[in-house]
């Protein structure tokens, strides 16, 4: 019996101790009509050797591609030590650290993580993480509305990832919160300071870099929102913060809440998860923050130690009055991230960010030199940018895929006004040869399309 250690002797001894004739008898309180758990679609068991074979075959079928897609999830080098230590059983198979004395490893690690994230974002405090960047932004919106005494309205630029905006809508819609979208400047690809009267609002979301990879004028936007009595939610890429101004330093007073996707800090792309959302904020908002928070305290002997704190905000104490229904963090991924940030250090993370920026810059130079390809926006970019091509984006991306290249994220669905636009990203993982290969293949595909009618094109 896989994963069940009982011998026949154990079973009989245990039933005798219970005073039950059989295991079936232990279910005698369940109405007979319901006792039908018969499974018809679950296949028979596989041994570890057999499942090994099956999963290897499936992984091989999926293959490996040279990836230039970013759009919210980024391929970075992950040191071998990160997941080797993270998957040690003591981290991997532990539960939420409710018994603090027996969970000092996880608790201290989260405290270190909170310190790193607070410093990276330039804010006072951090929680222990949320599910992912998108749901983290939704929680930040709810938090800003709770803290604001006026209207339940939040300004959301269209330069915020369209999937994040969809997640926010899904999570906040039943709480009567109005999300007002702000358009972007078609020349720069950034969000201009609104000139119309926006009325009372709780917060402005500022994405840096934004979904187009472009750098927003964060100081001006922050000061404008503060002048209107609203808070600023900074949606940031954590890798970029090794180079770019921390949200806590934006404008005169700094952003109030920072959130984002933690995946770039040591989590593999893994078809979308598990990732984690980070959240930091100013001290004054700490009691409005959702999620687990770890604090340092002392034990009976005065020795320093760590424990979950401010639990009075949480669902298991406050029930219907909790700040959120959330009752976990993404502990294991945070473990990986903390080890990742420790291994990279301030210099390493800065080099990763700089190399990603430089690679993207080189890629953009190479791509814009191709006939039929041009940059769309004039703003500076971090490690991602939008290019426009003179052929249907979907078809060209499929042709690149046939050559083993994932050429970027097709923007035509969410931003039809941009035409055949692709969001491209080159992190530090790409070599000069990789960038050349992409440019050569794109040039070849576009020129071949011009020579042959598209319907005949099959490569």
């Amino acid at each position: 019996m896989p994963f069940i250690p009982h011998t026949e002797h154990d079973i009989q001894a245990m039933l005798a101790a219970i005073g039950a004739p059989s295991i079936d008898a232990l279910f005698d309180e369940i109405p007979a009509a319901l006792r039908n758990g018969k499974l018809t679609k679950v296949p028979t068991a596989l041994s570890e050797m057999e499942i090994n074979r099956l999963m290897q075959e499936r992984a091989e079928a999926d293959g490996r591609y040279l990836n230039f897609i970013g759009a919210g999830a980024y391929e970075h080098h992950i040191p071998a030590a990160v997941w080797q230590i993270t998957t040690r059983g003591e981290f991997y198979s532990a539960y939420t650290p409710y018994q603090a004395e027996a969970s000092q490893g996880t608790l201290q690690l989260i405290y270190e993580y909170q310190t790193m994230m607070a410093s990276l974002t330039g804010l006072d405090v951090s929680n222990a993480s949320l599910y992912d960047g998108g749901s983290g932004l939704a929680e930040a919106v709810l938090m800003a509305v709770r803290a604001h005494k006026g209207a339940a309205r939040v300004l959301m630029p269209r330069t915020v990832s369209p999937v994040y905006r969809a997640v926010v809508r899904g999570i906040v819609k039943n709480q009567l919160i109005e999300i007002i979208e702000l358009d972007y400047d078609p020349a720069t690809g950034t969000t201009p300071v609104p000139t119309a009267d926006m009325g009372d609002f709780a917060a402005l979301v500022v994405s840096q870099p934004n979904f187009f990879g472009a750098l927003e004028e964060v100081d001006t936007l922050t000061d404008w929102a503060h002048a209107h009595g609203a808070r600023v939610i900074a949606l940031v890429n954590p890798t970029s913060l090794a180079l770019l101004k921390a949200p806590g330093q934006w404008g005169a007073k700094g952003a109030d809440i920072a959130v984002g996707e933690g995946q770039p800090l040591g989590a593999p792309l893994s078809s979308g998860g598990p990732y984690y959302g980070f959240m930091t904020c100013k001290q004054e908002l700490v009691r409005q923050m959702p999620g687990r928070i770890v604090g340092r305290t002392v034990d009976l002997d005065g020795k320093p130690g760590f424990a979950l704190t401010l639990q009075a905000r949480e669902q298991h104490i406050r029930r219907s009055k909790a700040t959120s229904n959330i009752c976990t963090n993404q502990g294991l991924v945070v473990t990986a991230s903390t080890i990742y940030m420790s291994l990279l250090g301030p210099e390493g993370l800065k080099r990763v960010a700089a190399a990603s920026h430089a690679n993207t810059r080189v890629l953009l130079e190479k791509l814009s030199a191709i006939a039929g390809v041009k940059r769309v926006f004039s703003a500076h970019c971090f490690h991602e940018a939008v290019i426009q091509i003179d052929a249907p984006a979907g078809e060209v991306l499929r042709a690149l895929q046939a050559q083993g290249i994932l050429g970027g994220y097709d923007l035509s669905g969410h931003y039809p006004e941009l035409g055949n636009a692709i969001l491209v990203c080159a992190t530090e993982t790409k070599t000069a040869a990789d960038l050349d290969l992409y440019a050569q293949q794109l040039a070849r595909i576009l020129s071949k399309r011009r020579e042959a009618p598209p319907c005949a094109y099959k490569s």
Partner: protein
Amino acid sequence: MLIFEHSRPGRAAHAQMPEHAADVSDLPAHLMRTDAPRLPEASEMDVVRHYTRLSQKNFSIDTQFYPLGSCTMKYNPRACNSLAMLPQFLARHPHAPAETGQGFLASMYELQEILKDVTGMAGVSMAPMAGAQGEFAGVSMIRAYHDARNDHARREIIVPNAAHGTNPATAVMCGYTVREIPTDREGDVDLEALRAAVGPHTAGLMLTNPSTLGVFEKKIQDIQKIVHDAGGLLYYDGANLNAILGRVKPGDMGFDVIHMNLHKTFSTPHGGGGPGAGPVGVSERLLPFMPVPVVTHDKGRYRLLVEADIPQSIGRMSANNGNAGVLLRAYIYARMLGAEGMHRVADFATLNANYLLAELKKAGFDIAFPTRRASHEFIITLKKLKDETGVTAMDFAKRLLDYGYHAPTTYFPLLVPECLLIEPTETESMETLDGFITAMKTILAEARSNPDLVKGAPYTQPVRRLDDVKAARELDLVWKR
């Protein structure tokens, strides 16, 4: 010692960074950072040693018996991890086209089918990233269902007072008010109170079965009829699905929507508090509202259904595809168990719980619901012991740590005073349970002979009992030099 205290200016793990600092002078100065973030400056070995040592300060399933009620701390098979971490699975971008992930998507599709089968539901979406998010998706679907019928008067969700705190918190996040109803002396929902509570304002009832009191809700068929007759829907909190896996299907009990905790029932790691996965299953009438993405299979090809495919969907729970890597682990576990193994889960989880209950009862512990069978877990109450000796459930829990056992869940459910909620799971052997019983008996004797010893526990952990009040009053959430 904190990792920051190992830090020395100029030290680094050089193998882990690009060799040169690339030129970024093209970026505008006013958008740039001027101070370095406070990340440690340490060698690779410093970091490896520090975090290896931290790991050794944890209790975990791999090192200790962990009878944490309502959390299903069963063994996490290692193959689930190693196979979910095959390089091709890890490297795949969430926006990569479906053709580049047919192996992954096939596994997701098959897991969806397996979850449908074990729950008896018509559809499953694996979008929610945790149990609480599954609850959110489930109650959002209840709301979307009533809204689609223009039945806007239904503004109230009913929860038993024994429910997990996430239930009422979730209902509020979905814009509902919450009405709590009492539990009777046998641990079942008070039917009279339920009848009095339902009406045209009832959106639904959230129920855990077996309940958080560790007993199977015997009157489930009556409850189902009362709620449905009133026009409400029935929500199944799958926290305790391990107790009935392969024995009873929530769909057969008449539930309209259910969430599962794959980190409990399907053995994905708890990881020190996540990531989990909280798929939702629905009955026919809620199919149009499922959260996206959902995996589909047609003409030999797997792909994700998105908003355009399910126009009435409640939407997205995550920016990408949910906790894909967790789902892969659950899939591998399900395939290793197979149909025959799944039937055994509830059997042996229940056998272990009832054995522990019987032996602890013989040892003189007060069982909260002594006339009932245990499901996969049960409650003992230390109220009398506390009155006699001053030793609380928390003291008892802390002393267990000294004997090398993780404590059971304490002070939950809230309606049983000084309670310990004990869930052994099916993966523990009789010898392990016997060792735990011996420790429980020893502590009971200690509490009577030397209560101060128990009140001062633990003594063998990296720290003694921590000052939670100080932690909350003098907030120290971030290290300052």
